[in-house]
């Protein structure tokens, strides 16, 4: 394999990653508009900031090759991997504490978890 084939393969691989990432970003944004309430919209946002963003970063890593830029991109994806669920959880917990409940809730076991915390707080 000469230099040009490697370059071509790299372009194809990163193109696939960019295209798939773009499709997931579009679907996530579409869901953000279409879903009915805060709770279900969180899941659409979840697609955007996990699969969408990570696929874009993977595409950029393939383009950059074995350079310092790839290390930095790897660090960005690692930090995104840790911080994005934390932010999502913060929003969900704030909505829960504020008393917002999902529309058309099918099953609610909140008392199983929160009841014990309340009891524990009362005891101490």
């Amino acid at each position, binding site marked *: 394999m000469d230099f040009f084939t490697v370059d071509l393969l790299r372009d194809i691989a990163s193109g696939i990653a960019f295209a798939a990432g773009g499709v997931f970003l579009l679907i996530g944004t579409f869901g953000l508009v279409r879903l009915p309430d805060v709770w279900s919209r969180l899941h659409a946002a979840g697609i955007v900031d996990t699969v969408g963003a990570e696929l874009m970063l993977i595409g950029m890593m393939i383009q950059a090759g074995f350079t310092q830029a790839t290390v930095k991109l790897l660090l960005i994806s690692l930090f995104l991997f840790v911080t994005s669920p934390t932010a999502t959880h913060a929003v969900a917990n704030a909505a829960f504490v504020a008393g917002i409940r*999902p529309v058309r809730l099918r099953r609610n076991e909140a008392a199983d*978890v929160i009841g014990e915390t309340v009891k524990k707080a009362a005891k101490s």
Partner: protein
Amino acid sequence: MTKAVALLVALFALWLALSGYFKPFLLTLGVLSCLFTVFLAARMKLLDDEAVPLQLRLSLLLYWGWLGREIFKSALAVSKVILAREMPIGQQLIAIPSTQKTEMGHVIFANSITLTPGTVTVAAGGGRFLVHALNEGFAAPEGFAEMDKRVTAVEVR
């Protein structure tokens, strides 16, 4: 002490990766600044299991690979829900038991649930997590049990 050395090595690796300088003078400055940071961290008593999680098994990396596949699978499932003409939403708040012993294990499990599209951890209490799921398909207890087992396996050496 082990934790201080580990933090020093990790900090210097980060310094090298972000700066890309290899001149002796700048390397010395980098080592000095890393040493100063470790000194400050030790003075603030930050060198514990939370800041320097050496107790985690290396198989955490394998777990991340498995988690990546799970995330991709459930992202496809959520995409199907979003693109369906009549969106099949049946929202649920379910209690998920967790078997981890340490706080770090709880954090990894809760964050993994939130990272997977279709499920979000809302609150914790009494050894259980309150999880919001988009519909019945995402609320299957077998999936959570498997994830719970894998997190417990990487938690403590």
